[in-house]
């Protein structure tokens, strides 16, 4: 099959970007979207042109490195997958595919389709952990945890930090990402001692990084490749409220 790519090109953070169009021939449905991009990039290199820069690494939906806006949808139109898991069999022969980077104030474009998401690390630094040192911890079975809670904590912990939720949100809010971590630790006994500070500090860090407010549109949940539920945002709000009252 053949597709026409309309891709965002931008030299670096300072430069103005623009769309460029590339027809790509001999695409097979079994190729992943990135394998199609690899093929195009090889052709560009051989023609002496600059290949399209895009972020990716594991190519199996777990590292959270990839993330493209494809035809206006974060990670493409299929639910529950990342961009690297998208296959060309999901597109029509002759289709025009518009490819853009994540767009949010807190994620500057560094080249073409690559953005900088270190703001997520800084939010984590503000409290996305249990303060334990290496060594001196109790036996792993010393604290039983209800399977139900462990499972729900695991649902939240599945977040891969891809930032599709932010890219999709009209307010560029990072609430789903923050909620996933706060909720995971709030559900577990290990997270209790720092529960109050964690919610306050992570939200403060999020505001400081320039992410917007959550107005409960629910778009994030739909685009999240790990299908993290917005019920975690509900829990985060309750945590935050309780914490603000105490704090």
């Amino acid at each position: 099959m053949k597709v026409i790519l309309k891709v965002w090109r931008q030299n670096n953070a300072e430069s103005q970007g623009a769309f460029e169009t590339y027809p790509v021939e001999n695409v097979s449905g079994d190729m992943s979207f990135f394998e199609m991009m690899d093929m195009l990039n090889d052709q560009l290199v051989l023609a002496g042109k600059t290949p399209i820069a895009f972020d990716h690494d594991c190519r199996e939906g777990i590292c959270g490195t990839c993330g493209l806006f494809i035809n206006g949808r974060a990670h493409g139109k299929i639910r529950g997958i990342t961009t690297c898991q998208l296959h060309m069999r999901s597109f029509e022969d002759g289709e025009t595919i518009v490819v853009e980077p994540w767009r949010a104030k807190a994620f500057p474009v560094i080249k073409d389709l690559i953005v900088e998401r270190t703001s997520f690390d800084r939010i984590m630094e503000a409290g996305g952990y249990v303060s334990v040192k290496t060594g001196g911890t109790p036996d792993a079975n010393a604290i039983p945890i209800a399977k139900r809670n462990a499972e729900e904590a695991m649902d939240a912990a599945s977040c891969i930090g891809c930032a599709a939720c932010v890219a999709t949100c009209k307010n560029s809010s990072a609430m789903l990402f923050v909620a996933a971590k706060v909720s995971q630790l709030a559900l577990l006994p290990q997270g209790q001692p720092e529960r109050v500070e964690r919610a306050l500090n992570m939200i403060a860090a999020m505001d400081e990084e320039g992410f917007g407010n959550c107005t409960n549109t629910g778009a994030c949940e739909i685009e999240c490749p790990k299908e993290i539920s917005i019920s975690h945002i509900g829990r985060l709000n309750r945590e935050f409220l309780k914490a603000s009252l105490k704090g």
Partner: protein
Amino acid sequence: MLNNKIPLGPLAEKWTNHKFSSKLVNPSNKRKYDIIIVGTGLAGASAAASLAELGYNVQAFSYHESPRRAHSIAAQGGINAAKNYPNDSDSIYRLFYDTIKGGDYRSREANVYRLAEVSNNIIDQCVAQGIPFAREYGGLLDNRSFGGAQVSRTFYARGQTGQQLLLGAYSALVRQMNTGQVKFHSRHEMLDLVLIDGEAKGIVTRNLITGEIQSHAANAVVLATGGYGNAFFLSTNAMASNATAAWRAHKKGAFFANPCITQIHPTCIPVASSHQSKLTLMSESLRNDGRVWVPKKKGDKRHPSEISEDERDYYLERLYPSFGNLVPRDVASRRAKEMCDMGHGVGETGLAVFLDFEDAIERMGKDVVVQKYGNLFDMYKQITGEDPYEIPMRIYPAVHYTMGGLWVDYNLMSTIPGLYILGEANFSDHGANRLGASALMQGLADGYFILPYTIGDYLSGKLGEKASVDNDAFSKTETDVKNRIENLLSINGNRTVDDIHKELGLILWENVGMARNKSGLEKAIESIPKLKDEFWKNVKVTGTADELNPELEKAGRVADFLELGELMARDALNREESCGGHFREEHQTEENEAKRNDEEFSYVAAWEHKGDDLTAKLHKEELVFENVELTTRSYK
């Protein structure tokens, strides 16, 4: 001479004695030491956090945007420990024994015993961090079994154990980043190691966004940079995983141990097209409940549902009645290849075997199967377009893990003083074959519980000896790095980096892959240097040095793979025996099992770089077995 520094005394007391006799750094002096850690996967992140907690100043580097992107994130199946929670007769000694035996007796007793010993601390640590491991209804931790063991000792977090462990280590790391005890340099690639008076004193990096070349000095350097499976181009590793840090260190004097010993994982999704960029693993845990089979009739292309029970060959259950589908990886992989070579392979290419869950679904119910393996089944369906609840999965072996790596002594120090190697990047604990769920264990053991105890022994005498980046050694290394980059950019030939990398991969897969023989290896030793010449004459790298340039990054890595590839073939040719993942066709039993030669090859092959145009020199570290008896591995 190689001194492995294995402490004296009975096996079970060595580590305790060693910790006691190692020199300590006074708590108030720790802040006077700078330590560079390259790589923040499981091994690097756990080490960086633990050393910072002790008070050392840590500079951590990764070519990734965030530590959370490291390839450790992709580990699916689980992590071993000798907790014996299921009461099925596990113990530290049994985990030690299984690992030594699984490694086909090519690892050190003392290292493996220590690994088993600290395994339990790792689980305690991870639970304390809030890692949501799988639990039973009573609220206690659940275990499952894995290949190469007859007890259930594997802890897991759905099919995302590596993700959860890495996020745990990452959380400990960000806590230290927040206090400033760790300075993390994201998107910085180490391109060379700097030695002063023969000791590791710093590194030279390239800022991947701006292209800036920078020097960093410290009292010691730690590499936790992962494995080199991507030498084969196609592997289950992440796209960027590479050997550059290890290879640069090797060229500066760190010996490379057992480079030919690589692991081919039996359960991966088969190659679909020539555009394939990577292979996807289906966790080995699937072999707990799935049954592997091929049609008895050669070339049988019928739909599997039309092939009746008596027309199927459950060859692992037939050949290995006591371990069945749970034989170690090397055995399972080789048998799959053999079945396909004999014409029993399935699917369009004939390079695949079935992994069938029909019985499991009947026995446990679909709900339980969904709960245990749901995400793996979904992943399979997304990639192949087939539904494994309806039709058996097709699987084929793929390159997965490298047991070889930089040589280290018991303290995890390489042959360069002050240079430590952790995680998959070292060769230490898995011998000729790594058991499932043991890499995560080893990476975290190295980072949380071993290096923090052993590094003090080296540092304690060196207070105030921190190097300065003003030393000539740094500017000289910077110049070398810049020249190499200029070279790569100036060739302007007509082959892409990937094109040459794929050719290398094919040479390695065919000659240094699942089965090796003398003539194939000699062919590889001849053709790889030619391909290296071709690379340096004819590669095309676009763009400039002072911008984000992924083609340039790849080019530097492939240049190193080309050199490492040759050493892999040389090592394989030298090792005239079969052991674990290294199968020499000339050395097999009548039943086609690996035939070791303990008389002559019970050693670690540690290679010393002698110069670009000279052959590497072999050093042997004899392996001494005082506690286990060397037997032929049998999984029958």
